[in-house]
């Protein structure tokens, strides 16, 4: 074991330096800026698109001239009360009634100059409102305006005059709440998943370099293959740590300038922020190692970039399932799904990180970390075995190994019966 670690570190050092000491790493480090840029750009695009859509939407009130004036005044007053000066449902357009209301309504709904989402006609006492499926709220707004017109009239007041003088104050909730702690857990799952999938997936192609430039034979002759796998993972993890440290520092600086009034303290995990961060770091390491070991083991079987890409897809999908399970666990702590996600090795790091936000117990984390380490070792050993068998054409295949294992477990009596059956001495009765 000591040898595996020792030589693993030699390989890790080589891999780490080969990546970090290059200009391309800087580009990789700044990749999230590009992602942020894309998010901002698509946000602007989306906002423009939404604004354009909203601008085209209108509500129609088919009413006579006197009603139209009252409705317009009340619409303005209600909007001011509910939303301030801006916002609220689409604007109301008043149209004089025609002889055939049904036909007029159909014509308005089919009109191309504006998207009519709701139409009010009839009297104010018995308004008839039709609306599109996604505009129920708009219909209720029209009903409210009609109601307010009548109320204002009966009270004998002006539309904008209010009977009460509300004192509206903003308060900040700083004490941690359960729902916010769950949000912290979910946030941890999302961040860990994004980091893991982005950084660990690089493991899939790392052995391709050694295979293409034939260094693998030197490595295989010098050190145990487990060292090669372990070293590659540690090297990549070192790169991931540089990445996380850089962005973690930026995030910490960003959070430190957020004012206390923002209420971030209500998101404090139940085990405390420092311990939560430490555990999240450990779980990230485990998630990275587990996923990286799978990527590495599977990628090692591939000979070309095309094969590597094809092999990456099922692993990514598998990891997405783990993400979904972990998110479900974060959303329902203590449930059966949560327990499954915390025990199943490949979702355990995410689910346990989420658990840290809502459960104060420490010992399950220590147990989970040991459990996950055990699975990291198994995944590396299996990956190395497959590599030895699939690439170096040495050792036994997975099915042969399974067969041998099963034969070992077969009782002697059963073995001798099999032998007799095979030799024809015993006839099996159907």
């Amino acid at each position, binding site marked *: 074991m000591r040898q595996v670690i020792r030589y693993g570190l030699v390989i890790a050092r080589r891999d780490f330096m080969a990546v970090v000491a290059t200009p391309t790493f800087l580009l990789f480090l700044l990749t999230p800026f590009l992602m942020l840029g894309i998010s901002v750009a698509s946000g602007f695009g989306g906002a423009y698109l939404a604004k354009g859509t909203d601008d085209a939407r209108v509500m129609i009130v088919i009413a006579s001239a006197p009603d139209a004036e009252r409705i317009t005044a009340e619409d303005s007053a209600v909007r001011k009360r509910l939303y301030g000066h801006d916002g609220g449902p689409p604007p109301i357009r008043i149209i004089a009634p025609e002889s055939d209301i049904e036909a007029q309504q159909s014509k308005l709904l089919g009109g191309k100059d504006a998207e009519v989402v709701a139409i009010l006609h009839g009297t104010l006492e018995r308004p008839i409102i039709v609306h599109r499926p996604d505009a129920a709220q708009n219909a209720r707004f029209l009903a409210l305006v009609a109601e307010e017109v009548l109320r204002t009239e009966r009270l004998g007041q002006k539309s904008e005059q209010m009977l009460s003088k509300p004192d509206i104050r903003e308060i900040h909730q700083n004490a941690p709440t359960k729902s916010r702690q769950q949000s912290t857990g979910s946030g941890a799952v999302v961040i860990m998943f994004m980091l893991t999938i982005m950084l660990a997936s690089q493991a899939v192609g790392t052995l391709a370099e050694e295979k293409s430039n034939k260094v693998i034979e030197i490595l295989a*002759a010098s050190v145990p293959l487990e060292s090669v796998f372990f070293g590659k993972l540690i090297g990549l993890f070192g790169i991931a740590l540089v990445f996380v440290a850089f962005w973690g520092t930026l995030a910490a600086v960003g959070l430190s300038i957020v004012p206390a009034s923002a209420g971030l303290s209500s998101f404090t995990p139940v085990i405390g922020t420092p311990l939560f961060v430490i555990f999240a770091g450990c779980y990230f390491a485990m998630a990275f190692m587990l996923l990286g070991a799978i990527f590495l083991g599977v990628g090692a079987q591939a000979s070309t970039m095309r094969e590597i890409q094809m092999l990456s897809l099922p692993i990514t999908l598998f990891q997405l399932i783990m993400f979904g399970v972990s998110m479900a666990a974060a959303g329902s702590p203590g449930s059966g799904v949560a327990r499954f996600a915390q025990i199943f090795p490949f979702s355990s790091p995410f689910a346990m990180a989420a658990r840290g936000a809502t459960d104060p117990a420490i010992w399950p984390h220590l147990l989970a970390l040991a459990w996950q380490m055990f699975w990291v070792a198994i995944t590396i050993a299996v990956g190395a075995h497959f590599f*030895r068998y699939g690439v170096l054409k040495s050792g036994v295949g997975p099915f042969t190994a399974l067969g041998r294992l099963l034969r070992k477990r077969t009782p002697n009596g059963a073995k001798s019966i099999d032998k007799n059956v095979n030799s024809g001495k015993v006839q099996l009765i159907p």
Partner: protein
Amino acid sequence: MSFTDDRPVWASGLIKSFGKSQAVKGVNLSVPKGSIYGVLGPNGAGKTTTLRMLLGIIDPDEGERRLLGDANPRHVSHRVGYLPEERGLYPSMKAREAIAFMGALRGMDWAEGRKRADEALESAGLGHVAHGKIRRLSKGMAQLVQLLGSLIHKPDLIVLDEPFSGLDPVNQELLERLILSERDRGATILFSTHVMGHAQRICDRLSIIAGGKVRFEGTVDEARSTLPMKAHYVPCSGGEEVRKLLPVDAELGGNGWHFTVPEGGAERLVVELVKAGHGIAGLSIERPGLHDAFVRIVNAVKAEEAEITA
């Protein structure tokens, strides 16, 4: 063939198959300590597979192996230097770093590796490329860098798979000198080749592998002595009449006769030729080279295999 401590490389009955094809069919090997040992064989004979099994890169399907006395080659890998047939270096690494890395893989400290790398590169005339990246080196230079990397930890056993291929004559000579100096240092060298010249010059002992089996084991002279000596005789006179006195395989070529020296030696034949008045204008007797012995053994194996197939 039993194992003894003075055999850094020992193997008995090694068998290895890839799918349905049996690449190695029971190889036995016993390399004396401090010797230069050649594994000769035609392409596809099973040399590389045998070396890989000896080094523990792959496991044999059957048979036993001992490397530096240990049944598990992994346990002694820090005492072994290996140059594979397919050369492999990281193109983005600097030459001295590549050598230090190979030393580190064999348990050496990085700093010590760099120091020795500088010395080794300097003595091999490659001091000027120490800080150059591998991708900028010529193929021959990169090959030498890799060789230096495999020797940097002063191994007790050096295994070289086709070390001369890809090198120009000057570098081939440099490599021969390097191998001899490593032997003088006390290391045991095992190398594979199908170029007989190098083997004939530097091997203390050798094995000829063909068809997955060892067909000959011994010294270079023993290999050569498997073939009878050849004579080249130039008579003073006599023309075609000389043929009557010469062995049946005698052929006229150039300015004289070529024939196999009879089993008892050439003395009696020389006396008869002189008595018959043909005289001796020239006579040379040569032992056939390793090349001839190799070709004869390989051809015999091919014939044997063809017979079995038929």
